[in-house]
């Protein structure tokens, strides 16, 4: 004899089912959004030891990316410049500025500035900067409009699907080599980008690689 359940409990199955469906949907949608690099990586903007502004150096002063990141065309790695490179200018410009004290100290002592790394690919991914920039992939595609950033911000997810998006359709991104470091450049129209991109792929023999060992080797 189990009369301890009042009559309304007969509606429980429907209520539980509806509730479970709602909670389930919320959980899946939440995980899908919050657990992916689109949320967890994009927007990462650490405070750097030196308040270096790409905006001032690139857009206002017109420095080329390669002036500082001078290995990017030659190596897999796009180097962060040593502080002596900063001193090329800053031994003249703002030479007494307090904001640059750390740079001067580093240049004098040889201890690197402890920059906080923003962009990172996992250890098991092989990424080669020179291959990309020499074949018409601009900095902006992975790093966003760094030329407009005062403080560097993680602009793209850099997840595997992000890489794949481009690897499957390089013609949507590929551009003439002389426009690679022009972060504001855009093709006149999408159709032109595709036509030009296809032509460049043909010319450079760029393949749409999405096999595992293209990146994991």
């Amino acid at each position, binding site marked *: *004899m189990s009369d301890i359940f009042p009559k*309304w*409990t*007969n509606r*429980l199955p429907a209520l539980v089912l509806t509730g479970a469906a709602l909670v389930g949907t919320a959980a899946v949608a939440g995980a899908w959004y919050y657990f992916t690099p689109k949320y967890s990586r994009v927007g990462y903007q650490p405070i750097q030891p030196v308040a270096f502004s790409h905006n001032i150096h690139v857009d206002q002063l017109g420095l080329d990316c390669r002036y500082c990141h001078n290995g990017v065309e030659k190596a897999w790695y796009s180097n962060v410049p040593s502080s002596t490179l900063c001193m090329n200018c800053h031994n003249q410009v703002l030479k007494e500025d307090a904001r640059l004290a750390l740079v001067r100290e580093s240049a004098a002592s040889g201890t690197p500035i402890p920059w906080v790394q923003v962009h990172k690919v996992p250890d098991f991914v092989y990424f080669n900067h020179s291959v990309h920039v020499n074949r018409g992939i601009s900095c902006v595609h992975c790093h966003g409009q760094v030329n407009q950033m005062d403080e560097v911000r993680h602009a793209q997810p850099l997840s595997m699907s992000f890489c794949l998006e481009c690897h499957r359709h390089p013609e949507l991104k590929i551009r003439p080599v002389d426009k690679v470091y022009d972060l504001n450049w855009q093709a006149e129209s999408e159709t032109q980008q595709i036509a030009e991109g296809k032509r460049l792929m043909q010319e450079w023999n760029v393949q749409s690689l*999405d*096999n595992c060992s293209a990146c994991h080797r």
Partner: protein
Amino acid sequence: MSESATPYGLIAEFSTPADAMHAAEKIRDQGFKRWDVYSPYPVHGMDKAMGLGNSKVGWFTFIGGVSGYTLGMVMIWFMNKFDYAIPVGGKPMFSPFSAFPPSYELTILLGAFGALFGMFIMNRLPRLHHPLLKHARFKLASHDRFFIVIECHDPSYRGDETRALLESLGGRNIEVVEE
């Protein structure tokens, strides 16, 4: 149980499965529709005695199984051939052979869901509150007793006449169960 409660049905008690079964045959022949036999275990032959047809649960399983197999095959084709083909081991991107084991498992999984939830749907379970659960002697239905309950909503239900019928069939402790 309050005085004003509406009656739910007439309950009669039987000691042996054979008595319950003979009673069920008679009640079936009288044309009752809303009634049932309650027993601690499924009594072999009772479906026939009550005039029940084949259970429909099989259809739920069948639909579950077919959709599981289709889902498996389509999913694997979409994932490994259409959306992102991964060349491995010189094997074709999609082969009904290598796609078979997971699709087979999905067939069984969804078929099993179909069987269980089909049973729940057909039986309108879960139903935690029921007039019979308030009846004192009804707890013996899960122990060693057999009950027949004829609901008052049955079009053939005729109060005392029905009670007399149950009595003549050997039912004991005949009582009215209230809503």
